[in-house]
């Protein structure tokens, strides 16, 4: 058993593209739920639209990657509007059910063979990051994300961040996007605008009675958080193929776990939560099978690999029960969280 290897592999998730993608989407959830009180249980749908919007933009419309990325973002804005305009008047838990259902509708439509020509249905889409496209269709994916890579070919960095130019490019772009996103959200929530949305979280009728257009604020929150989700989806698409089986309800639940790990009403909590989530996932996902394979755990290695998901679920329960403000949330708040 290679303990050092397991540690290093896990540590590499500190700055992995998936971690950054989670951090972006979780930041969106923090804005939705932690600050705005919106129970968005459909973040996976926003991410799917970001990812597919980009992939379809490149493959079907032949757009360069930066325009295609905007297709993904625009799709998430349209989704937020379609979802928000009719439903933001509903009670909180109804919104949860509507968003989860809407995200499933998106996923099922992406999976359906009815639109297979564009979405690739069950196979998903690939080859959109370029350069050079796929073997069968060399023009496909021209203008993809990788074409913007200014880093010369080669392997850079140090263990556990020893990666090729493509991964570094992705990582740098991801960190830049994330840094800007965190700064913007930090600015927003510490402004008078942020005060209004926190007020709405506490009691929207009270805020309404003070003359604020609660509905418009909620819609703004839904859109901004949704765009962050789409950015997360974009990161996932930049990194690899898109497939509707990724954007399932469980993905949303994992994001919620990361959110509550870090602290829902914090700006850095989503990043911290995502890092902890992924590093732990990777660590347990490697450790248990390794233990099982050397006979230290009485399970098959397949079973051992699944234990981490069981732990995620129960960790979420324990977090909400015992530390609702998250690892980095304001302790003072805990006294009043109900």
């Amino acid at each position, binding site marked *: 058993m290679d303990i050092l290897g397991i540690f290093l592999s896990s540590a590499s998730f500190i700055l992995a593209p998936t971690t950054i993608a989670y951090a972006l989407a979780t930041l969106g959830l923090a804005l939705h739920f932690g600050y705005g009180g919106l129970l968005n249980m459909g973040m996976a749908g926003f991410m799917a639209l970001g990812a597919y919007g980009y992939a379809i933009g490149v493959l079907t419309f032949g757009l360069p990657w930066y325009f295609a990325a905007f297709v993904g973002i625009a799709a998430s804005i349209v989704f937020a509007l379609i979802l928000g305009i009719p439903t933001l008047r509903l009670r909180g838990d109804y919104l949860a059910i509507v968003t989860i259902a809407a995200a499933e509708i998106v996923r099922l439509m992406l999976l359906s063979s009815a639109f297979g020509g564009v979405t690739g249905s069950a196979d998903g889409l690939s080859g959109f990051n370029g350069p050079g496209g796929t073997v069968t269709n060399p023009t496909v994916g021209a203008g993809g994300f990788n074409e913007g890579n200014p880093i010369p070919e080669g392997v850079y960095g140090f263990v556990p961040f020893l990666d090729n130019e493509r991964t570094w490019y992705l990582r740098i772009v991801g960190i830049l996007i994330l840094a800007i996103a965190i700064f*913007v959200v930090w*600015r*927003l929530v510490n*402004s*008078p*605008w*942020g*005060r*209004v949305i*926190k*007020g709405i*979280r*506490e*009691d929207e*009728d*009270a*805020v*309404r*009675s*003070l*003359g*604020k*257009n*609660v509905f418009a604020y909620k819609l*703004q929150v839904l859109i901004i958080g949704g765009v962050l989700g789409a950015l997360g989806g974009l990161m996932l698409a930049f990194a690899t193929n898109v497939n509707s089986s990724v954007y399932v309800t469980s993905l949303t639940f994992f994001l919620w776990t990361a959110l509550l790990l870090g602290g829902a*009403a914090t700006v850095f909590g989503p990043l911290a939560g995502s890092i902890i989530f992924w590093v732990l996932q990777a660590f347990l996902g490697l450790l248990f099978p390794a233990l099982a394979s050397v006979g230290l755990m009485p399970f098959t290695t397949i079973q051992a690999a699944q234990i981490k998901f069981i732990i995620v679920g129960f960790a979420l329960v324990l977090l909400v029960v015992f530390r609702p403000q998250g690892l980095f949330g304001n302790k*003072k*708040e805990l*006294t*009043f*969280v109900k």
Partner: protein
Amino acid sequence: MSSKPTSSSPIKSTGLHVGEIKPGVAKKDPILIADGVRRQFGGLVAVDVDHVEIPRNAITALIGPNGAGKTTFFNLLTGFDQPNEGKWSFNGKSLAKVSAFRVARRGLIRTFQLTKALGLLTVMDNMKLGSTEQSGEKLSASLFPFLWTKKETEIEAKATEILQRFKLDTKKDDFAASLSGGQRKLLEMARALMTDPELVMLDEPMAGVNPALTESLLEHILGLKAQGMTVLFVEHDMHMVRHIADWVIVMAEGRVVAEGAPDEVMKNPAVIDAYLGSHQDVDLGTVTGRITLPKISKEK
């Protein structure tokens, strides 16, 4: 019409009405007029007000047994609920179909029977939220602090001043959730004042406030009138109503059953009827106190 309040015996505004006193009597200078406002919940007619006018720059008490429809009437007037039929206007402009936040922007602010302090915001943030002048509340401006920090300082100064009046200034950095029930009522009222309202509608502002605070709350209400505002408030305690109200409107089973100056209206048989049914031997002041009348309605 206005007067400087004193705690012992505030000077009442008189001569508010025109013509014979009866339910729906016209006022000399009404700020709010409701006409045929009706709200039904299934088979239950919760509010059915033929006509009522609220006098400007006076303190009007809205009384009536639990379930009379006072809160529902408040909700209807302020856009938090829509009536089945009826017209109502504020400062001569119709409020029908105007959403709650626009009603508030026109200067009609209400508080809630179940206090709505914003628990996980500090007392100061609660107050600042009341201000209507902060352009930084716009999404576009919020990202650029230089556009709004100056205003923020002004708002803070104003908030501090009001908090001092309400003796909440020492709590300004605490979460509103840490306040006592009575303090939250005070905060809600103070927050409403941040909007510089013309008409303040208070739904049971004294319920749950301890007697020591009640005194100062009454002072504040009188102070609002002194500053030129109009107050409409719901209260069950007849002694308090007598003490500060210039005018009393009595509701029962959704209708306005009586109106008049506080001392007169108490003698009105319709009022005694509404409150007591057959138990006419009991003193009104005691019965209409904080004790919930049995089995008239279930309040949430």
